[in-house]
C-alpha cells in the first residue's frame, strides 16, 4: 500500500484493543476517557478510510472481481493463503463508519450512565473495547475463518456485557444469548470447514470463482449451515427468542450497542456471502429469507405494541426492524436494493441506539421501567423525549429521515421488479411501527397523575440526554443527505 505508517484499517482494530486493555489495567469502572479518546480517533480513521475508498474505489475495481476491494492490507506482510488478509470495500467502509459513529456517543453516554461503583459498569469499558475491536476486525476480514474468529470475539464480549448486570434475570438472558451465539457460530464454522474440505481455501476472493450453482451437495449444505447460523445470530424470526430478554434486560448503553451494531454484524456477513463467494447458491433461499423477514416485521411489531416494559418494547422493535433487512434479498439484482439495505442498517443503527439511550434516561429519571410509568415525562425530560420522537420518526420511516429513504428505496426496488408484496409489507410495517412509537409518545404527553411525580423526577446528567439526542438527530439528518453514503457503496464494488 501507498503509506505503510498510515494504515487506518489496522489501527481500527489495534486502537480498541489498546484502550480496552488499558481500561482493564486501570481497574474496575475506569478508563472511560481513554475509551472516548480512542473512539474519537477511530471515528476519524473510519472517516478517512471511507473517503479513501470512496475516491479510489472505482479506479481499482477490476472487471473480473465484482467485489474487488479498494484498500487491502496483508498482516505482517504475509499474504493469503498463509497470512491474514484485510480488505475494505465500500460496504465494509460504511459499516466501519457506522460502528464508530454509534460507539462514540454511546461511550459518552455510558460514562455518565455508570456511576462509580455501579456493579453493572465495572467491566464495561474493557468489554466494549473487545466488542468494537471484534466488530471492526469482522468488517475488514477477507477470509471466512478469520471472520469466524471475530464473530466469536463479538459474541462473547456481547454475552459478557449482558451478564455484567449481575441480576438473576440478566444472567438467565445472558445464558440464553450465549447458547444462541455459540450454536450460531458453531453452525457457521461447520459450514466453513465443509467449504475448506471441498475447495481447500477460506479466502473470499479465491472462493469467488470456484463456487457455482452445480456445486456438490456438500457445498450447498455448507452454505445452508452458514446462513442458518448467521440468521440465529441476527435474531431473524423465528430465531429471535434470545433477543428481547438480552436486549431488554441489559443496561441501556449495552442494549444500545447490541441492538444497533452487534446484530448488524451477522447480517453484514449474510450480505457479504450473498454478494461474494456464495452468490451462485444463496439466491435460492431469497424468498424464504424475505418471508421470515416479513413475519419478523409483523410478529415483532405486534409484540412491541403489547409490551408492558419500555425496553422490551424497543427490543421487539429491533426484531421487527431487522425484518426489513431481509426483505431486500429477493430484490438484490436491482442496485437500489443493496442501497436500501445499507440505508436501513444505518437508519436503524443510529435510531435504535438513540432510542435505547433515551429510554435509559427515562427509566433512570422516573425510576419505572414500564410504558405506563412515563406519564408526564414530556415536562421533565423534553430533550430526551424529543430524541425518542426523532428516533421513532426514523423507525416509522417518516420523512425526513434515513428510515424514510430506506423505505423509499425498498419500495421502489420492489415495484421495479414487480414484487408488490414486498412494498406492501414495508408500508404496513411502517404503520405498525407508528402504533408502538406513538404508544410511548402518547403516554409521555399525558398529564402526570396527581401526586405520582411528587417525589420528582431524579435529575439526570445533561450528557445522557444530549448523547441520546445526537444519535437520534443523526438518524434524521442522514435522511436529508444520503448521496455520499450511497456513492460509497458503489465504490470498490
Amino acid at each position, binding site marked *: 500500500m501507498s503509506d505503510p505508517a498510515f494504515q487506518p484499517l489496522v489501527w481500527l482494530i489495534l486502537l480498541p484493543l489498546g484502550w480496552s486493555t488499558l481500561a482493564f489495567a486501570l481497574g474496575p469502572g475506569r478508563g472511560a476517557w481513554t475509551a472516548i479518546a480512542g473512539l474519537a480517533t477511530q471515528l476519524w480513521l473510519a472517516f478517512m478510510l471511507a473517503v479513501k475508498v470512496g475516491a479510489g474505489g472505482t479506479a481499482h475495481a477490476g472487471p473480473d472481481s465484482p467485489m474487488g476491494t479498494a484498500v487491502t492490507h496483508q498482516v505482517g506482510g504475509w499474504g493469503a493463503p498463509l497470512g491474514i488478509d484485510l480488505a475494505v470495500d465500500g460496504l465494509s467502509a460504511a459499516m466501519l463508519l457506522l460502528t464508530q459513529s454509534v460507539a462514540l456517543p454511546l461511550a459518552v453516554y455510558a460514562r455518565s450512565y455508570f456511576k462509580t461503583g455501579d456493579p453493572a459498569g465495572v467491566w464495561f469499558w474493557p468489554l466494549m473495547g473487545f466488542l468494537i475491536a471484534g466488530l471492526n476486525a469482522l468488517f475488514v476480514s477477507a477470509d471466512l475463518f478469520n471472520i469466524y474468529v471475530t464473530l466469536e470475539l463479538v459474541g462473547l464480549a456481547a454475552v459478557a456485557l449482558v451478564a455484567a448486570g449481575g441480576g438473576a434475570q440478566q444472567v438467565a438472558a445472558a445464558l440464553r444469548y450465549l447458547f444462541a451465539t455459540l450454536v450460531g457460530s458453531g453452525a457457521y464454522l461447520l459450514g466453513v470447514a465443509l467449504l475448506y474440505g471441498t475447495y481447500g481455501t477460506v479466502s473470499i476472493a479465491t472462493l469467488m470463482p470456484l463456487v457455482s450453482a452445480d456445486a456438490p451437495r456438500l457445498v450447498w449444505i455448507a452454505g445452508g449451515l452458514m446462513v442458518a447460523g448467521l440468521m440465529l445470530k441476527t435474531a431473524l424470526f423465528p430465531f429471535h427468542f434470545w433477543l428481547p430478554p438480552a436486549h431488554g434486560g441489559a443496561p441501556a448503553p449495552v442494549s444500545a450497542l447490541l441492538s444497533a451494531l452487534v446484530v448488524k454484524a451477522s447480517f453484514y456477513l449474510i450480505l457479504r456471502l450473498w454478494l461474494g463467494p456464495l452468490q451462485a447458491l444463496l439466491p435460492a433461499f431469497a424468498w424464504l429469507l424475505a418471508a421470515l423477514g416479513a413475519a419478523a416485521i409483523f410478529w415483532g411489531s405486534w409484540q412491541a405494541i403489547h409490551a408492558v416494559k419500555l425496553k422490551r418494547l424497543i427490543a421487539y422493535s429491533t426484531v421487527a426492524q431487522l425484518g426489513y433487512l431481509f426483505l431486500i434479498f429477493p430484490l438484490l439484482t436491482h442496485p437500489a436494493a443493496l*442501497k436500501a439495505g445499507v440505508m436501513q442498517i444505518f437508519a436503524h443503527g443510529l435510531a435504535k441506539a438513540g432510542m435505547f439511550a433515551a429510554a435509559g434516561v427515562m427509566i433512570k429519571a422516573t425510576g419505572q421501567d414500564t410504558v405506563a410509568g412515563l406519564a*408526564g415525562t*414530556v*415536562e421533565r425530560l*423534553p430533550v430526551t423525549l*424529543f430524541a425518542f*420522537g426523532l428516533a421513532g*420518526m426514523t423507525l*416509522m420511516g*417518516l*420523512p*425526513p429521515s434515513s428510515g*424514510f*429513504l430506506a*423505505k*423509499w*428505496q425498498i*419500495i*421502489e426496488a420492489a*415495484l*421495479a421488479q414487480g414484487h408488490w408484496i414486498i*412494498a406492501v409489507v414495508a*408500508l404496513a410495517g*411502517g*404503520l405498525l411501527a*407508528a402504533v408502538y412509537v*406513538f404508544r410511548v*409518545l*402518547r403516554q409521555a*404527553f*399525558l*398529564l402526570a397523575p396527581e401526586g405520582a411525580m411528587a417525589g420528582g423526577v431524579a435529575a439526570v446528567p445533561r450528557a445522557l440526554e444530549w448523547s441520546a439526542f445526537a444519535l437520534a438527530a443523526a438518524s434524521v439528518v442522514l*435522511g*436529508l*443527505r*444520503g*448521496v455520499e453514503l*450511497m*456513492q460509497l457503496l458503489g465504490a470498490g464494488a
Partner: protein
Amino acid sequence: MTTNELLPLAVLASSLLPGLVIFTLPESWIAVRTTLNLFGAVAKLGLVFLLLAGVHAGGSYGVRFEVLPGLDLALKADALGMLFITLSAILWLFTTLYAIGYLEGAPHRSRFFGFFSLCVTATMGIAMAANLFTFFVFYELLTLSTFPLVVHRGTDKAMKGGTIYLAYTLIGGTALLTGIVWLHHLIGHTEFAHGGIASALGGEYAGQLKIIFLLLIAGVGVKAALVPLHGWLPQAMVAPAPVSALLHAVAVVKAGAFGIVRIVYEVYGVEFAQSLNLLLPLAIIAAVTIVWGSFRALFQDDLKKRLAFSTVSQVSYIALGVALFGPIGTIGGLVHLVHQGIMKITLFFCAGNYAETLGIHKVSEMDGAGRRMPLTTLAFSIGALGMMGAPLTAGAVSKAWLMDGATAAGMDWAIWVLWTSSLLNAAYFLPILWRAWFRPVPAAWPEEHIPQRGLRETAWLLLLPPLLTAAMTLATALFADAAITPLAWARLIAAREYVGLETP
C-alpha cells in the same frame, strides 16, 4: 448561491430557526420568546412579499438538493405556491399575536410555539415543493408537528383526538407515499410542471395512472377532509383555539386541498385528467362532502365542532372548483383557498374569544353574547355571512366564480350543490347570530375569565386579530377587481395553467 436560490430557503428558515431556538428557551423567558416569534413572523412576511414581487415580475425562484442519487429535495416559488404561502404568512402573523394573548400564563408555551413554528415551516415547504417527493416530506412533517399541538393539553380527551388524527393522517400518508413511489417508478421523476407530467406515458398506462390518482387523492384527501376521510377533523377540536384556527384555516386542511390542486394541475394536467375521466368522480366526492359537512354542522351544539363540520364542507369548494374543467372554475377554487382561510380563521378566533372570555363553548350558551362582546360578535357575523356567501363578502366572490365555472363546464348540478350548501350554511350560522345579538343577556356567563373594562371586551391581543381578518373578508370582496388581490392572483395562475386556452 444566488438570491433566487436563497430566498425560498430564507422563507423556510424564518420560521424554522426561531422555532428551534424557542424549544430551548426556559418557560419564564416570555419577552425573548415573544420577540423571536414576532420577529420570525414579520421577517417571513417581508420575505414573502419580496418573493411575491419577484414571481409577479416573472422571475423564477428555486433551489434543489440531492438526497439520493436521482432524488431531489426541490423548492420553487411559482404563482400557485405563492397564493398559499402569502395566505399562510399573513395568517401566521395574526395567529401568533392571537396565541400570545390566548396562552398568557398557560404552561408549556415554549413547546407550543416551537411546534407551532415547525408547523408553519412545513406548510411553507408544502407550498414551495417542486416535486411530489418534496411535497410528501413536508406533508408528513406537518402531521408530526401538529400532533403535539393537538394533544397540547395532555388530557385523556386530547389524547383520543390526537390518536384519531394520527391514525387518519398516517394511513393517508401511506397511500400517498405508495402513489408517489409508483409514479416515480413509472416516470422516473415527480417534478411538478404546467400541464402535468403523467401525459408523457403512453395509453397502456391509463389503468395504472387511474389507480395512482386514487391513491394520491386519498392521501391528500385525508387532510382536505373529503368525505369519508373527514372523521379526524371534529375530533381534533380538542386543541387550543389558535391551533384550531391554524389547522382549519391554514395549515392542515389547506395542505390537503393544495395537494389536490397540485396533483390535478401539475402532475396529471387538467386536460389529461379530464381525458382519463378522473375529474367527474372528484367533483362528485367534493359535492357530497360539501352537502354532508353542512348537514352535519346543523346538529352540533359545540361551537368549535359546528365550525369544524363547516370547514369539512367549505374546503371541498376548492376541490369542486379544481374538478370543474375550465379556467373559471379553477379561479373560483383557488380564490376560495384564500377566502375560506380568512373567513374561517376569523370564526375560530372569535370562538376562542368566547371560550376564553366568558367560558362559552356551546351554541346554546351564546345568548346575549353580542351585547357583552360586540366587536368579537361583529367579526364573527362577518365571517359567518361570508361563509353563507352573502354579498360584499369574500365568500360571495368565490361562490360567483364557482357557479360561473359550473355553468361553463356544463355541470349545472354543481350550482344546485352550491345553493344547497348556502342554505344549510345559513341554517346553522343564522341561529348563532340571532342568539348572540337578539337574545337577552343571561344572569351569569358560564365562566367569566376576563372582566369587561370600558370598551375593552376582552384582551387586546385576542380582539385585534379577528377584527383584522374580518376586515380582510370585506376588503377582498370590495376591491376584488384591484390589481393585487387573491382574485387577481388566481386569474394569473389560471392563465399559466391553461396553456393556450382563453382565460377570463
